């Protein structure tokens, strides 16, 4: 039996070679060479809409050799908010997480800046709308990337027939499909008269006064069209102003034409109101219309989504933005940024909008005229004006322009609808204003 002797030189060479091989091995481009990425997307209301984002992410993952795990987190029961809070506390979780409206600002200190991603996207897709900048930016830093999925305008969705019959308003003539709006006469006075006429006709407008988002958004847009804000952008209290008083006076009149139980409405109440055929108008994205298409086609074919009425200080419509944020403690930030770029390409955005039946709304100026909104029906063109294609109205969010962390409290605590309800129930104006001022002072704690 022969035994080969290993020389010292041979031993050193073999060790060096095997060490080099071991060290470089992970960089060999295998199936998941670029590591892992976990994503927490918002679970879409529209059946099948999640598939579009899954497909886009999977195509990207295959190209980039990244192992991806996607969780769809519902907003029912605020599960998405709980997830955000839990991950922020644990400093661990998804690499990308969908965050609604106020949450990028609420978690600003824990989010990875996205300026490098946004610079490129803005060049490609155009400027994002003002509300997205307000909600997504802090001191020049992009806190998260605006998501088309889940973003929406909560404008009026009117019944063509009932508005004609009871209020003598032809909403299709005001907002013709495929053409700019001819809605100069569509202001808060006309709106109030229409609300009264429809209430007398037994089909009141379905506008809620509860504490959930739909109710607050409508109140926010109406307050803004009077130029009324509770706190200005510098954080000063502006509750006791004429603009706020005018907005409250208007709301007091409006409430008398709304369903008597509007104070208890949540976000599903207006949808049910429209689908059941009991009302002539609601303020909602096309989700109620989409449900009507399935459950009450005779209602759906009479629905027309259009712009808000103008007030003395302009025409405002509530825009609710969703974002995709990456935690600063994420383990794969570069991959996260790369997939966010892929999800924000115009063709990807169009794919997701189509999958959502036109519900999703990109914030970029070049992407408000996609085919989906022109083609969706019945009736054809019902969603044409949904994405504000002619910039006919200013997109905003309730409680803006207050600093976002204060505005979030005003919004969450539904201070605006509570003020309207208190005043309507007979509380003196000055008492209502003093109460709101006290609340806002409390919201300013840091």
């Amino acid at each position, binding site marked *: 039996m022969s035994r080969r002797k290993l020389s010292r030189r041979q031993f050193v060479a073999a060790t060096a070679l095997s060490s080099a091989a071991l060290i470089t091995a992970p960089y060999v481009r295998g199936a998941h060479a670029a590591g892992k990425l976990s994503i927490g997307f918002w679970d879409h209301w529209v059946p099948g809409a999640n598939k579009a984002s899954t497909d886009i992410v999977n195509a990207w993952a295959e190209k980039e050799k990244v192992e991806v795990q996607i969780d769809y987190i519902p907003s029912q029961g*605020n599960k998405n*908010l*709980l997830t955000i*809070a839990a991950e922020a*506390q644990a400093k661990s979780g998804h690499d990308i997480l969908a965050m609604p409206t*106020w*949450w990028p600002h*609420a*978690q600003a*200190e824990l989010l990875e800046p996205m300026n490098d991603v946004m610079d490129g996207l803005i060049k490609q897709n155009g400027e994002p709308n003002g509300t997205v900048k307000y909600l997504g930016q802090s001191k020049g830093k992009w806190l998260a990337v605006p998501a088309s999925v889940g973003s929406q305008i909560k404008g009026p969705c009117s019944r063509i027939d009932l508005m004609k019959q009871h209020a003598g308003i032809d909403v299709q003539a005001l907002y013709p499909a495929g053409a700019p709006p001819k809605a100069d006469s569509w202001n808060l006075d006309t709106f109030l008269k229409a609300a009264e006429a429809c209430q007398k006709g037994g089909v009141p407008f379905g506008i809620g*006064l*509860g*504490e*959930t988002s739909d109710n607050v958004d409508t109140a926010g847009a109406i307050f803004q069209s009077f130029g009324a804000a509770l706190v200005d952008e510098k954080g000063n209290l502006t509750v006791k102003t004429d603009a706020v008083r005018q907005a409250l006076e208007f709301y007091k009149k409006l409430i008398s034409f709304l*369903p*008597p*139980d*509007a*104070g*208890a*409405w*949540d976000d599903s*109440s207006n949808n*049910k*109101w429209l689908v*059941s055929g*009991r009302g002539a108008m609601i303020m909602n994205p096309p989700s109620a219309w989409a449900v009507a298409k399935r459950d009450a086609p005779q209602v759906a074919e009479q629905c027309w989504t259009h712009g808000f009425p103008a007030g003395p200080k302009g025409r405002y419509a509530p825009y609710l933005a969703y974002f995709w944020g990456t935690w600063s403690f994420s383990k794969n930030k570069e991959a996260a940024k790369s997939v966010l770029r892929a999800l924000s390409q115009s063709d990807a955005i169009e794919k997701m909008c189509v999958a959502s039946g036109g519900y999703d709304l990109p914030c970029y100026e070049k992407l408000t005229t996609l085919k989906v909104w022109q083609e969706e029906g019945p009736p054809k063109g019902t969603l044409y004006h949904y994405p504000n294609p002619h910039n006919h109205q200013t997109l905003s969010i309730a409680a803006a322009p207050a600093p976002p*962390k204060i505005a*979030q*409290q005003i919004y*969450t*605590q*539904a201070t605006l609808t*509570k003020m309207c*309800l*208190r005043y309507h129930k007979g509380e003196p104006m000055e008492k209502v204003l003093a*109460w709101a001022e*006290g*609340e806002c002072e*409390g919201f300013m*704690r*840091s």
Partner: protein
Amino acid sequence: MADVVLQPNRAATSKTVGKRGSLHKMLKRKSTVAFLMALPLILLIATLVIYPAFYALHLATLNKSMSRFVGLGNFEFLFKRETFWLVVQQSCIFAITAVIFKAVLGFIIAHFVHNIPAKGQRKWRGMLLVPWVIPPAMSTLAWLWLFDPSYSAFNYTLSFFGIGPIPWTGDAYWARFSVILVNIWVGAPFFMIMYLAALKSVPDQLYEAAAIDGANWWQRIWYVTLPMMRNIIAITTLFSLIVTFANFDIVRILTAGGPLDHTHIFATWAFRIGIEGSDIPLGASVSLFMVPILAVAAIFILRDISKRGNEA
């Protein structure tokens, strides 16, 4: 010689046997066995209850952005808020009213069930426990449909009698009534089953003696049943009071605290502030506010129970 050689070994052996013996004795002790058997539960409670409780305490001492220690600053802030005192008032109304009604209803129903012949009793017991057994989130959804602002099944029925429509969740007082009603509906079976167990343990001889002494129905309840059930009533009331003060699901699903914050209780308002409003330290402070009050109540009630136990 052999003895001399064996001596040290024997000493060592007896020492080992002694040690082993004491370990054996300790393991055989009932208290040790009980402790070991309860250990998994103790560990579970430590992980899921004690740690989060201390963490909540820690959170309650931080500022809004959780970057600075503020001591009792959050509580100081809360005490100046009108809404906070509204929530304190409502939580007390909600918990105390609901517990009183649950106890009274549970007591009455327990008596009815106790008087049903043994053959059919199991069926009734099972049926009456259903509201308590269904997850409250699910049953409250059914109640939500019954109370729905626009399509209430109750209002539909009442309309046949020319009554209503009643704003079950739209008016502050009706909304309070509705959330308390659902809480009573969910919780009364727990009282019923506890009281039924207590009723069954009251010896028949006591009633026979009372009957011989000429006691009427009311006197039998007052002088025999109630004293015999005193401990179980105290424990059930304490337990239910704590659970009702900490209730979340019923109010959250039925009214979400509205209208105008008039049905918010500690847990729902803490959620609104902490999770929806991103002010976790203030939310933690709201949820911790009742802890000292309930702890004092628990100490007094439990002390009273153990005192009576010792007297017995």
